[in-house]
């Protein structure tokens, strides 16, 4: 176990910004802490680095209890959102800073700095000052600086937040490559679900200081255990339901229960399906699969490769979001105000909170 958090808690006054969080991360894993701003995810990272003291709990890194160690003795590499390079030092001096502190001999230091400059593909930039670099280049230097002393864990606090979209994508790939090549354990904090999906081996969902659930991107998207996860990771249609026997009751409607949901038998549940699971047919035509209901198209919006359609369910008036390919939409001749049948390909059940 590379990183082990046991019931860690951080309070400001009476409110817990980090509330009893426990977590285990394997060696070489890239773990993403995903949550809205103010959810406490950055604080967790700062607690691991020793930059924010704990009010309770325990932290181990590579089997070493670091709970009461200062940041200097934790062997973590930290990358900040605003790069935080030392402005008066060259790129090479920035990367070599930690080695210099540890009194690594000059020749050895130089060799390691060269190695890292090669790793981030910035060999010719060693003598530049941070102010002479682009944001993306500065962040690469910050990553190299954090890796210079071969830390037990690399901690990245919204590292791409200040960069524009195009560079962000490129840097994500670079980071993933570097992290896998060095097989270094890493935790990345972000509020961007797309970033989490692209990078993470595993994602931990944080809300109001609590770690709600952990899973692979695929698991969390398809089979979330919490309503928050369902709505934070993309769009979700949610309906209160009840599971009885092998049937789901949603108001007057009945659908066969999906497999592996026996543990929810007899309990109030929520039925969840993603907009891309919705199928639409004209009112007069038959529909493949489960018929969920009928409704009136409220709006149709362009959403890149797909069309985003909002349907007002009859008679309850609840809104259903659907993603439909433009071809199908054209075949059906869909227009706002049309009456349609709504079907659901796959759906998921989660406990009602």
């Amino acid at each position, binding site marked *: 176990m590379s990183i082990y958090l046991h019931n860690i808690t951080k309070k400001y006054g009476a409110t817990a910004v980090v509330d009893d969080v426990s977590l285990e991360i394997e060696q070489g894993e890239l773990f993403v802490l995903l949550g809205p701003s103010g959810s406490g995810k950055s604080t967790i990272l700062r607690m691991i680095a020793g930059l924010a003291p704990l009010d309770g709990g325990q932290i181990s890194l590579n089997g070493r209890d670091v709970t009461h160690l200062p*940041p200097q003795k934790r062997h973590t590499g930290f990358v900040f959102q*605003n790069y935080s390079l*030392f402005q008066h030092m060259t790129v090479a001096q920035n990367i070599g*800073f930690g080695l210099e*502190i540890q009194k690594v001999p000059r020749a050895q230091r130089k060799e390691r700095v060269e190695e890292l400059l090669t790793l981030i593909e910035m060999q010719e930039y060693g003598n530049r000052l941070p102010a002479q670099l682009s944001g993306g280049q500065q962040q690469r230097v910050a990553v190299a600086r954090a890796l210079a002393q071969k830390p037990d864990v690399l901690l990245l606090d919204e590292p791409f937040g200040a960069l524009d979209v195009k560079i962000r994508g490129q840097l994500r790939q670079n980071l993933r490559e570097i992290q896998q090549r060095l097989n270094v354990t890493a935790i990345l904090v972000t509020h961007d679900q797309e970033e989490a999906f692209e990078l993470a081996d595993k994602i931990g969902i944080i809300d109001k200081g609590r770690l709600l659930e952990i899973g692979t991107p695929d698991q969390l998207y398809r089979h979330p255990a919490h309503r928050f996860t369902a709505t934070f990771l993309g769009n979700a249609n949610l309906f209160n339901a009840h599971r009885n026997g092998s049937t789901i009751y949603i108001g007057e409607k009945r659908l066969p229960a999906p497999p592996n949901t026996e543990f929810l038998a007899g309990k109030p549940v929520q039925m969840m399906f993603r907009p891309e699971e919705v199928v639409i047919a004209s009112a007069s035509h038959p529909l493949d699969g489960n018929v969920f209901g009928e409704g009136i198209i409220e709006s149709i919006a362009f959403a890149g490769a797909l069309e985003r359609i909002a349907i007002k369910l009859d008679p309850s008036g609840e809104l259903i979001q659907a993603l439909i390919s433009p071809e199908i939409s054209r075949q059906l001749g869909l227009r706002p105000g049309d009456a349609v049948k709504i079907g659901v390909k796959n759906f998921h059940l989660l406990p009602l909170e």
Partner: protein
Amino acid sequence: MKERNLSFGGILLLAIVLIYAGVLLLAPVLALVSNTFQNGFEPFWNAITDGEALGTLWLSIRLAVLASTFNAILGVMVAWVLVRHTFWGKGFLNALVDLPLVISPVIVGYVMIVLFGRLGWLKDFPIKLAFSWEGMLVLTVFVSLPFVIREIQPVLSGMGKEQEEAAFTLGATPWGTFWRVVFPAIRHALTYGIVLTLARSLGEFGAVAVIGGGTQGSTESATIYIYRSLNDRNYAGAYSMALLLGIISVVILIIMNNLRIHKRGG
């Protein structure tokens, strides 16, 4: 040279500025120089090599250097606390820093006499502050207090604490982080603040005149010497010392301008 297209308003503004600068700055300097050398170079040389005059200048320089050293160290600490720490009464303390700029130095000198004088409430204070050079030093420190603080504050808050935290995670101690990371960042602002402090201290008259009493040979600074020389109709002495102080100020001004360019360039 860039092409200049000045409108009538622009020309008028420029003229006003030039006349203003001429009347307020250039004319007094010219008058001072011409008065100083109206009887040739010798009276000037005699006046500034006079033992008494040199003594007052020495006292002024000593006060300025000591006050600047003190305010440099204290200023960094106060700026640090005001930027990096949160505590009850911080806003009040921050406002208090500007007090020396808005309160008349003469009043501060008078208050000091009332407190530390022979009949004052704190007359048993172990260091004699009334009518002593130590008292003059305390007041010089007071009147030049804000400059270093106000120069460093924006630099510190602008750089944020992440660089320091990065240094911590890389193994640097707080003390090591200060010297390797923070000090290089505030160096130019600090020097600029010290230069301002020096200039302000050298020119101080009211506060040091009141607290020191201007006793010849002991608590008479260069500015007090000028004042006394004028009263005694020793014009050669007054003009010469004034010119000398003026030259020192100009030198400081030049240093300051160079630093400002440096500061802007990062």
